């Protein structure tokens, strides 16, 4: 019998180097581990059924636009017309039973969290959407790219904290780019 398989992050120290800030950290970069991620797309004519199922199971209303609707450990993040990204830190929240095209992406995405007073400035060197609090606050979400790397990001709180979901194979590059942009602004990046 082969040994059980160990789950491993896409990030390793030598491709995603850690860094510690000189003094007060401008921002903190971490990987968000152990989240369930799935894409959910509504079938034709069954949109209401899906909305009801989500309400029933997760206690939230599917958002109509690019925002994050969260309840408890689970959230639905608008990803396009009739499409959502489901993210949950509750291992039992598996959405595969929903009446929709559900595709597990828990391994397809790496989620990073960037938090702190310099987070916005660091992100704005990579992402060109408007992150100003008037335009983008907690609950706001956007699918965009960070210097050419596709990302889906949302703001969690006013720290500000951003969570950035990136295709796993790009995670190390994105990490380096955030860490590099953060270097002059005092970043604490640890795996």
């Amino acid at each position, binding site marked *: 019998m*082969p040994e059980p398989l160990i789950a491993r992050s896409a990030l390793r120290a030598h491709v995603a180097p850690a860094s510690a800030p000189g003094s007060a950290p401008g921002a903190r970069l971490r990987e968000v581990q152990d989240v369930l991620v799935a894409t959910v797309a509504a079938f*034709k004519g069954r949109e209401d059924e899906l909305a009801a199922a989500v309400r029933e199971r997760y206690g939230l209303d599917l958002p109509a636009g690019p925002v994050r609707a969260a309840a408890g450990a689970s959230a639905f993040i608008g990803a396009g017309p009739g499409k959502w990204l489901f993210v949950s830190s509750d291992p039992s929240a598996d959405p595969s039973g929903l009446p929709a095209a559900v595709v597990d992406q*828990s391994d397809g995405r790496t989620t990073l969290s960037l938090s702190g007073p310099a987070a916005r400035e660091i992100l704005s060197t990579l992402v*060109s959407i408007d992150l100003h609090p008037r335009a983008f606050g907690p609950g706001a979400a956007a699918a965009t790219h960070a210097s050419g*790397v596709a990302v889906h990001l949302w703001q969690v709180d006013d720290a500000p904290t951003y969570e950035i979901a990136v295709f*796993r*194979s790009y995670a190390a590059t994105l990490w380096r780019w955030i860490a*590099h942009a953060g270097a002059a602004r005092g970043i604490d990046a640890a795996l």
Partner: protein
Amino acid sequence: MSQSHRLPAGGLVDRAKRLSFSFDGKTLEGHAGDTLASALVANGVKLVGRSFKYHRPRGLVSAGAEEPNGLVELRTGARREPNVKATTAELYDGLTAQSQNRWPSLAFDLMAVNQLAAPMFTAGFYYKTFMWPAAFWEKLYEPLIRRAAGLGSLSGEADPDEYEKATVHCDVLVIGSGPAGLAAALAAGRSGARVVLAEEDFALGGRLLAERLTVGGVPAAQWAAQAEAELAALPDVTLLKRTAVFGVYDDGVYGAIEKVADHLPVPAPHQPRQRYWRIVAKRTVLAAGAIERPIAFGNNDRPGVMAAGAVRSYLNRFGAAPGRRAVVFANNDDAARTVADLAAAGCEVAAVVDARGDATALQAAAKAAGATLLFGGQVVEALGRGAVAGARIASAKGGTLDVPCDLIAVSGGWNPSVQLSSHHGARPRWDDRLAAFLPGQAPAGMAVAGAASGAFGLAQCLAEGAQAGRAAAEAAGFSGGGFDRPDVEPEPEEVYGAGPWRVSGSKAKAFVDFQNDVSVKDVELAAREGFVSVEHLKRYTTLGMATDQGKTGNVLGLAIMAEVTGRTIPQTGSTLARSPFAPVALGALGGAHRGKEYRPTRLPPSHFFAEEQGAVFVETGQWMRAAYFPQAGEKDWFESMVREVTTVRTKVGVYDASTLGKIDVQGPDAGAFLDRVYTSAFSKMPVGKARYGLALREDGFVLDDGTIARLAEGHYYLTTSTAHAAQMMRHLEFCRQWLFPELDVHLASITDQWAKYAIAGPRARDVVAALVDEGNDVSNEGLPFLGVKELTVCGGVKARLFRLSFSGELAYELAVPARYGDAMIRAIVKAGEPFGICPYGAEALAVMRIEKGHAAGPEINGQTTAGDLGMTGLLSTKKDFVGRTLATRDGLVDPNRPTLVGLRPVDRTARLRAGAHLVKRGVQPVAANDEGYVTSAAYSPSNGHWIALALLSRGPERMGEIVRVFDPVRDGDVECEVVSPCFVDPEGARLRA
């Protein structure tokens, strides 16, 4: 010489801070707050450069970004930067600068002999000569011309500094921080709008810093500082100093460059040298000010001839005197300030020459300064060889007189800085009253205010700026920004003289465009030869094409062309300004991601394992893939590849196939959808089966191939080639959303979700069997060739197992969630140890697929049809699919088309290479006989010699024929036998085993 020309008091420099710098090796001193130019002025340095063509001695003309003469090489070594304007280079301690375009030294420039031949070097002279003998052009003439051209030089070393890009969104962007810009920013900022104020200079204030004026009862510079303090305190106002807006793009997008660390000896650790800003603005106020014009007279390029406004900048802002004894030559009243400021600074004003018949302000100023005043007079020529020693003045009555002086301050009027307003193609319009070009139709969302719009009075600038700022904020949805115009001293109603543009009466050259050495005579010659369109004038004489883009000289040149051709200035027209407004370092536009970070690097799940195994990697698009896994004793890729192929063919190997594109297709219409995008039918394929699929472009050529597996009723899983993954996803979304919107089907990229390993070789089943959890039958019956199963491995990890083979061996593709990818390959290798497993890389994979004759990237290159690849059988005749109709065009079904074959060298030791062409044996290897080419070649360990795949005209009919494989670029010329493209196990027994 220690700051010999620094005034005893005054200016905005910090006299307590002394900075040492060197110019052409000579150590000098300046102060914090100086530019390199002002420090040179303070040290009495007049000669700062040599001109482009004639190597004439040149001095500073301006104090700003328009400077045409004072260009230096800044810094040394890899940080050397050519063509830096001394007028915008902020002084720092230890700055080193070299003059340019001179040899051996600035003062003694041998190239100045060019001046002797200058009469011949008119505009466009090279079009008329250097044609004989033809071969001499590249060998002799051109190198000479090229060596003479160009000003500074690059180090040739990689730029060691870092750069950064950033985006900022705002309601109102204000460009320029003179009185108009500050008023605009205050008016908009006070309303609560998000405001970005971008100023090229290191200090805010624009002309306020250069004039002895009061605003709101305090000195103008102090008012600017107060305004700055208020703006800095507003939470949503961003002040970007040292930031030049360089271009206007569509929908309120602006490009700007912030010089983050150019005023430091070297950037701090991790600090970018410059930051490139994308500014997204709802509304914009352009308050870029105006630039003073020269007047063309003899030797008007002598060091010591300076714009009158620049003289004030040096005196008032920098506390430095550009001369001790000045002649002021002007056609407008603004120069009266120069006269007064010179006198106030203790400089002598020898004469004031007012080109207009009569005027008031200048007269008063001259009187107050005790200078001779010449109405209607003109400076005909600057006297002196290396620098100005006097001015030859023609009086209105006809006589001339020579007035000794070391400074000629000139004002030919002002050109509003309209450049950015014309970046969308609208030409500026001429205003007769102001004798200036004003903004034409400005880009959507942009308003122009202050001197840039022709408001030349301070009060007007403040009022216009405030009005524009308020209106901009309102348009962006904000109100209530109040700005009461502060009091300013009354200014005289000014009289603007259009001309004189040029002064005759001197034999000496009179310059229009200083940097490119375009003289009045060149403009005249252009007119004579028919280059009368301003655009022809520009290109024939290079007027306005130098690093200053004609900021000082352009209007002058156009005006002279108008005069020469007897047209008005509006009839003559003007050329168009384009981005960048001021030159921008290429490195800054390149941004942060250089070298290895130029593009993202995608790492497959086995990457770290492969690294540990000492794999050699190869870039495949953005992916890094293991090319081969060298083992001790193997001396090159070839030996490793042979071992890996042999191991797979005789035992078993494992390969990371995760880079293939993987797409999840779900929905009631998934099958129908695939039927329309692939050439064969998939709706009828049973669950648990997989098949090869071919997709065409609508024009009938092959787009991509892959495998399609049916996991459940409305659920398919398809793969694409690594290279076409993104393109296929896009194509499928296009088909889904646009071509066939009625179908209920959903796509998701799952490339990164699944780690996928090919386990191939006669012992593959043994390895797989050791990994799958109990109860999963992977026997030939349980999982036959082209079968698919969802199961678990290694104690409960969900997996998908496909019985597919690219290598031609008994093979499986085992997919597990990517987090287990690393552990999975280790487990596979471990489970395979008893069977002699080895990991294999892209090299071995490529060899095996060539041995099997599978088409891949080199064959599916966008130029081939299904028929070319021997896959006509895959084109369903029972249904429509994308590309079906156009695939029937004559040109695509021509029997003469090159078609896929295999090649085997007659001499079995011969090497074959992809890219070689094919001709019949015994014919000339010329184009007319070209019958195709080698698409892929490899050494086949299984055959013991090189083999190749090729596209050969009527190939399949020619089995057994010997063709010539001609590769002149690599001196290759061998004979090959045309054979089937499948070199290993043509019956396919192994993969079904």
